[in-house]
């Protein structure tokens, strides 16, 4: 039971991690685009 709950939590955190990584990549892209516009 305990390990089942842990696996569930692990899956949730993993999913969140994935989303954060995607957001970070998108943000980096926007930042670079803005910086190139400024320069």
């Amino acid at each position, binding site marked *: 039971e*305990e*390990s*089942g709950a*842990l*696996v569930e*939590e*692990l*899956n949730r*955190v*993993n999913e*969140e*991690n*994935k989303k*954060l*990584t995607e*957001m*970070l*990549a998108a*943000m*980096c892209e*926007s*930042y670079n685009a*803005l*910086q190139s*516009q*400024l320069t």
Partner: protein
Amino acid sequence: LDLNINPSHNTIKVLKRESSGKLADSDVKVPVKQETGALLEELNRISAENKKLTEMLTVLCERYSSLQNQYMELVSRNSGSDATAATSKKRKAECEDYATMIGFSGKAESSCSDEDSCKKPKDCIKAKISRAYVRTNPSDNSLIVRDGYQWRKYGQKVTRDNPSPRAYFKCSFAPSCPVKKKVQRSAEDPSILVATYEGEHNHEQHSPPALSSLSPNNGTSNPRSAPVSSSSSAPAKSSPPTVTLELMKPTGLGNDTQNPTQQVDEPAIQQILVQQMAASLTRDPNFTAALASAISGKVLDHK
């Protein structure tokens, strides 16, 4: 973007073990506590990564916001420079209005006499431009350069680059003579007057006799103003007198302290104007022919 994250590697291994249903012989030996410990360790690792990612995202958001602010500032500054350009256009229009006001024809004077506000002086100014530098007493606020010609002042304005006002003159023979003159004190040395001439005179330098008699300095140049140098063929030869007629009230600084010897009485101005008009009319051969025929017609009628 590589954040050294491989979150699914260990998890998948664990999940595979979980979901496989059948446990291998080796797995049977692994105690449940150990498995839970591994899962917990993995969860902690991923949570730490998660935290790190969130922090990075926050930092990036902050930097993005500041960059965006810089960008907006730059955009607003650019729009400000557009407004400056619009002001420059307005000044040019005002300057053209001056030309219209004094009766210059559009063809000859389509150029803007304001070099500062004009972006393309070569396209704008067709007339020949020359410059003369005259040393004067710095305490003398009048912008009068004695160059042997008669001038009428038609405007004055304060420019951005110089605290002294700039005066605009046209030749007294205008509109037949298209020459214009701008006079301003040098920004570097206030004792020097810079006169910029546009165009060339199409008449003699000498003044009409009536004007000579009106001038206080008959035939001599003003002792306070001596030419320093002339950059080209500007009419800097100073000998005949110059009378400057103030057709417009000066708006610049310290004009109330103008030299009284340079002021001409109002009836005298009228007389000068009448004589100048008569002189310009008699120079026109068509007018003299028409006048002669009218007079002869009258004489014949009388007979």
